[in-house]
């Protein structure tokens, strides 16, 4: 590779950096002031592209294109303000986890609204009027629009920087970023400030999306891709730092560009195609930065935001009534094959529900008692599933061996990732776990030779005696019951108490000799291992495994299951997973707009039932008891 080719890629990287900067800067600004990680930020970006497309094609010409871009930014800004006023104002004081979920619900709703308005086809906008040509740079042709992007990123950075440094609004934003309670105490109208910042951040996302209209087609998958990129940039740059966002955008874009420029390298015994490492690369950068500087390159430690979640009750061993209920439920599940003779679908649903229960219970183990809100639990599901499937595919391993290997592979992954994750907390832990899950996903997706890439691994069928649906169902039931009971036992043992002690007060736990990080690390690993069993069972139940089944969607499903059942109860995840998996297999299959439906469920949960199903039932019964 020549030097000029290398430099040309670096130049390309700069134009990509501007794009990343636009996605991330609004998110960072909003987080700095409101302390809300707005997952729907990527959706606003996506909306920007769609709206700008409509302007550019319906009105047309230079006015339709350039005027449309400006109009789009304003429209998305207004839309963002509406979101803030209608939804977010209600949840500023909720626990972080609920805020993340509420904005994720918006992602689902906006995605389906976009599908409804613009349809499912990709929409490619016109080329930019006035910037259609290309210029010679380093003997290569660089589109003038890319040059424009290279300039516009730093230009907007400069404008924002001056605005924050010189104007009254900017001073308020900076003050609120440092200490929003103090700003409130000084008589500043916080509601107005938050709405304004949200509108500004949204407008920047809309602008970023609109600017892409001449380069890439509007696409319904953009929202999650964009938010993934934005997270990485913001976390690397430091939450709330605008200059950090640009710096991080440049670093990440350049690392990717260099990966592409390097291409295939022969290391003698093996060859590495670096251009296929782009997806992994950005998350690797993030992991490295978070480990070296936990608050990002230019970020500062955030003051603890007080959450007013109701404190948890002490855990009690199962009452006779609960034990009876569990025994009856288990007996009914054992008898399901008899019922299923008339409708064989019942068993498929049963297997799905049991796998979901195991998945959710293992997530709850670290989320509830451990207080570690993992946004990447799908990683261990995927490691288990792929671990088992690849053993079958490459070594023709028998099913028993493959199923036994699933938790071990997941455990190894959880030990590795967990070691880093427990060093962080709150939003940063959530982001890092998400990043690790993306690394697993990207590795599976891009390592085609080993994993079959996007096609996945097929032909992973159970062998005798579990090759009938009934026997496989019974195997799943047995393993799920063992897994759930084992985790429950751990929670009542000293280890589970130590995990809760570390969550309740890390300082006090350390002061009585508990190594909190180590306890949480082991808890993380145990949860990962059990989750791996769920993954292995899943692979054999479906006969195949593909990247899309281990993506970010599954991690979020897990969070919803735990919250739906109630995070503060031990039976919550079981109930939540059962209800959720049943809904997913029945109602959501019936409608094209299942995302909006799921989003609606999540919003209802966050706004009306923060204690989940079991929490609400417990409240109801305790009230009923005191009343009688």
């Amino acid at each position, binding site marked *: 590779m020549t030097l000029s080719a290398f430099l040309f890629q670096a130049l390309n990287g700069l134009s990509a950096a501007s794009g990343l900067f636009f996605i991330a800067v609004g998110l960072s600004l909003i987080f700095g002031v409101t302390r809300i990680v707005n997952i729907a930020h990527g959706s606003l970006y996506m909306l920007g592209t769609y709206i700008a497309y409509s302007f550019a094609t319906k009105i047309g010409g230079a006015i339709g294109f350039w005027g449309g871009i400006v109009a789009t930014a304003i429209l998305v800004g207004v839309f963002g303000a509406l979101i803030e006023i209608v939804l977010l104002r209600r949840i500023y004081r909720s626990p972080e986890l609920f805020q993340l979920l509420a904005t994720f619900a918006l992602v689902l709703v906006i995605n389906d609204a976009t599908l409804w308005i613009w349809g499912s086809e990709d929409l490619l906008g016109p080329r930019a009027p006035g910037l259609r040509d290309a210029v010679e740079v380093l003997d290569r042709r660089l589109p003038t629009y890319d040059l424009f992007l290279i300039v516009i990123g730093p230009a907007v950075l400069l404008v924002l920087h001056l605005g924050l440094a010189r104007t009254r609004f900017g001073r308020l934003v900076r003050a609120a970023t440092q200490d929003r309670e103090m700003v409130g105490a000084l008589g500043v109208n916080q509601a107005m400030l938050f709405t304004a910042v949200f509108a500004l951040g949204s407008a920047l996302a809309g602008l970023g999306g609109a600017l892409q209209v001449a380069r890439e087609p509007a696409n319904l998958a953009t929202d999650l891709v964009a938010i993934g990129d934005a997270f990485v940039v913001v976390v690397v740059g430091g939450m709330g730092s605008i200059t950090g966002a640009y710096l991080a955008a440049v670093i990440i874009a350049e690392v990717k560009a260099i990966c592409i420029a390097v291409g295939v390298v022969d290391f003698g015994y093996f060859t590495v195609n670096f251009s296929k490492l782009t997806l992994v690369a950005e998350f690797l950068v993030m992991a490295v930065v978070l480990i070296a500087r936990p608050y990002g390159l230019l970020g500062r430690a955030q003051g603890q935001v007080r959450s007013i979640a109701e*404190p948890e009750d002490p855990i009690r061993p199962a009452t006779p009534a609960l034990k009876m209920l569990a025994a009856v439920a288990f007996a009914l599940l054992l008898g399901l094959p008899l019922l299923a003779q008339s409708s064989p679908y019942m068993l498929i649903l049963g297997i799905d529900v049991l796998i979901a229960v195991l998945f959710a219970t293992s997530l709850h183990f670290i989320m509830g008692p451990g207080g570690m809100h993992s946004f990447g639990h799908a990683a261990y599901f995927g490691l288990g599933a792929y671990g088992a499937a690849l053993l079958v595919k490459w070594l023709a391993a028998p099913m028993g061996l493959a199923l036994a290997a699933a938790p071990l592979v997941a455990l190894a992954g959880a030990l590795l990732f967990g070691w880093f994750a427990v060093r962080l907390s709150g939003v940063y832990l959530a982001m890092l776990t998400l990043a690790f899950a993306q690394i697993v996903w990207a590795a599976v997706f891009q390592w085609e030779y080993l994993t079959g890439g996007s096609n996945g691994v097929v032909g992973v069928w159970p062998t005798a005696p579990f090759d009938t649906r009934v026997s496989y169902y019974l195997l799943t039931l047995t393993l799920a019951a063992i897994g759930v009971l084992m985790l429950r036992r751990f929670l009542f043992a000293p280890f589970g*108490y130590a995990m809760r002690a570390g969550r309740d007060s890390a300082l*006090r736990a350390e002061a009585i*000799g508990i190594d909190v990080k180590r306890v949480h690390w082991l808890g993380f690993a145990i949860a990962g291992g059990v989750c791996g069993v769920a993954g292995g069972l899943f692979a054999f139940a479906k006969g195949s495994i593909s990247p899309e089944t281990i993506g970010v969607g599954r991690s979020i499903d897990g969070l919803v299951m735990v919250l739906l059942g109630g995070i503060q109860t031990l039976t919550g995840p079981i109930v939540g997973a059962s209800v959720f998996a049943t809904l997913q297999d029945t109602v959501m299959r019936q409608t094209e707009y299942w995302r909006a439906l799921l989003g609606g469920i999540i919003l209802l949960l966050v706004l009306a039932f923060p204690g989940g199903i079991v929490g609400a039932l417990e409240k109801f019964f305790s009230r009923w008891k005191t009343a009688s």
Partner: protein
Amino acid sequence: MSDLSIRALSKAFGGVRAVNEVSFEVKRGEFLAMIGPNGAGKSTCFNMINGQLAPDSGSIWFEQKNLTGLAPREIWRLGVGRTFQVASTFGSMTVGENVQMALLSHANEIYRYWRPAAAMHRERALALLDQVGMREAADRPSRELAYGDVKRVELAIALANDPRLLLMDEPTAGMAPRERNDLIALVKRLVVEQGISVLFTEHSMDVVFAFADRIIVLARGRLIADGNAAEIRDHPQVREVYFGTGKTFARAAGAAS
């Protein structure tokens, strides 16, 4: 012989020398109070001794072992108990379980996965709670307790590892006067019975002068006095840092007369 020995301990935050070459000793069985006006460096000094802050220079010795640079949990394992300025317990556990947690840790049983914890060390936990008068509350969620009771539970937790030295950072902060005296009297009785040395900071002079065997005084990061209650009361420098020299108002008073 001395139990705890602080040698030339220093810590600066930016340009502020919060603790400046402070040296003192706590003898076995001694009830030593550290006092000083706000910003004197008491809490900084404390946090270095209990391992939360690393000193810039100087060293901390406990029973011929160097504590400097050890983590809080390692210091605890050597037999040093502590209570916090703002008391907190494990809110999701009962009062009894809070004490059991410390006993489990003391017995190195944290990494046990099978036996239910609720039944382990239960008797000993109840005995410890009995000592502080909280046995009745053993099965209540600890987050429901009144603040004064939380302080008592904290004391029971601090005694769980049979400490030979107890560090108490403002043990009576936020308590009513009656409660204060009761708590300190309780601490004093327990430590005398069990031969524990205590280092504590305190704002209430009543408590300090009534109970402390010896008093050391910090001001602006330096140790300015060391002695018994009578000596400290009459120490000119101590009077100066607490009451001022009166010079600020001297001219105003002269002008008025």
